[in-house]
């Protein structure tokens, strides 16, 4: 069950998205998205594969540019920022990739230390080592520091990927399919980690998933996306009380099959 000790501050939206559009050639991926993420809140974006969920968070972090609409993160319009300002903003926003995207030529310790070394050049080796140890302990993998990514399981890679983003102490976390490709027990552990991250690091998060268990466990609010639009938003119970269309298909697949 969700253990949300932090209050959601409904007067403080850390991400504001308005009328967002994005196309790739003839494929209209996002067609008028509106979303607010409030401080201390976990919003789960649910939807089928290829509906533009990952595109949405890549636009939020500035990896992709929208065709129309605005994305305001911590008071800054992302597409208006210069490179240096965008980098400053990214220090406050963590992004956990679906594939983990660990640097395969580096050990776990080096993977975690790398963003810290590059962004805090005044940090001593001892300070970096200490911070890496704290994060590894927080994600429950203190003994993997000298292992290479190729020696880790899928679940461990996801945890290290989350740890690498936490090392910069972000205010916002963006998770791209955190439980995809994992067995139910490891998925459950990941869900607990996402909740623990929110509690311990006081983050606000957008979690992209098609896993209803994940949505139920970690989400304060759920937004269901279909054909580039949100078709339903609310708490998990509000959204899934009315099981029709896509929502019914999701529910049936996840909880009945």
């Amino acid at each position, binding site marked *: 069950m969700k253990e949300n000790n932090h209050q959601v501050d409904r007067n403080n939206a850390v991400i504001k998205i308005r009328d967002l559009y994005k196309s790739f050639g003839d494929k209209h991926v996002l067609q008028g998205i509106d979303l607010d993420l409030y401080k201390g809140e976990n919003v789960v974006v649910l939807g089928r594969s290829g509906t533009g969920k990952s595109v949405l968070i890549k636009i939020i972090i500035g990896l992709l540019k929208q065709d129309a609409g605005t994305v305001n993160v911590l008071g800054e319009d992302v597409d208006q920022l210069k490179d240096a300002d965008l980098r400053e903003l990214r220090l406050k926003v963590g992004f956990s990739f679906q594939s983990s995207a660990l640097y395969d030529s580096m050990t776990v310790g080096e993977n975690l230390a*790398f963003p810290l070394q590059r962004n805090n050049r005044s940090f001593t080796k001892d300070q970096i080592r200490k911070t890496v140890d704290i994060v590894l302990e927080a994600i429950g993998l203190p003994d993997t520091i000298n292992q290479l990514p190729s020696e880790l399981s899928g679940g461990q890679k996801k945890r290290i990927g989350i740890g690498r983003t936490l090392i910069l102490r972000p205010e916002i976390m963006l998770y791209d399919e955190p439980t995809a490709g994992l067995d139910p027990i490891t998925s459950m552990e990941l869900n607990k980690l996402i909740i623990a991250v929110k509690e311990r690091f006081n983050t606000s998060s957008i979690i992209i998933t098609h896993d209803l268990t994940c949505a139920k466990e970690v989400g304060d609010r759920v937004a269901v996306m279909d054909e580039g639009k949100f078709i339903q938003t609310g708490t998990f119970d509000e959204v899934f009380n009315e099981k029709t269309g896509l929502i019914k298909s999701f529910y049936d697949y996840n909880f009945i099959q």
Partner: protein
Amino acid sequence: MNSTNGKQDKPVITAKIDGFFLVFYNIAVFLGRFFREAFRPPVEWGEFVRQCYQVGYKSLALVTVTGFITGVVFTEQSRPTLSEFGVTAWLPSLVAIAVVRALAPLIAALICAGKVGSSIGAELGSMKVTEQIDAMEVSAINPFRYLVVTRVTAMTICLPLLMFYNALIGCLGSYIDVHAHEQTSLISFFDNAFAQITFLDYTTALTKAILYGFTIGIVSCYQGWNASQGTMGVGKAANVSVIVSMFLIFIEEVIIVHVFNSIR
């Protein structure tokens, strides 16, 4: 031409021409970004030194073997002709001129294009398709400066060093062969060899090596940086890096030779 969905598509030839110019535009943007990033602090010294080690030190064995064999073979092949005219004493200077002016820059460049260029293309391509470059971006790290600037700079600096080393080893190989047949001393060989080499020859060789190194670095990084389509894209990036680098090296060779010969 009408497509099945009723929209007006471009003819294939027009699309290909557009694609051709788009590649040139993208390369120009890539080059522009390189020069913009290369002169901005902070310098990634650690990665630069690591790349110098990869490009320079790890190529030494191959450069040594090919340089030595080139020197020996070129001497062996030239001797019969020079013997006919009774001028085998010209062998040291003939070999030195050939090695410094043409062979050493080309051989060092072709080795680096094959060995290092393919490796850079594959490494960056693999990082691209596995989102490792995106991971750097979202960690507020400038991946272009960290990955591209360091590799291109290391390549541009190390290739001239490898070229001069290759020339020296080539002359050494030639000396061993000449000494075995004509009993020439080491001092006499190198006196003769370098008597004919002018400052312009060294300048030509250095210019070639710098340009070749830069070309290999930029081409390989560009291919890797723009890799797509998963593992197939990685293989393609490595392959195209080598082919395009070699092609451009030969074109540059012709241009530089003409330019410097007009000065000579």
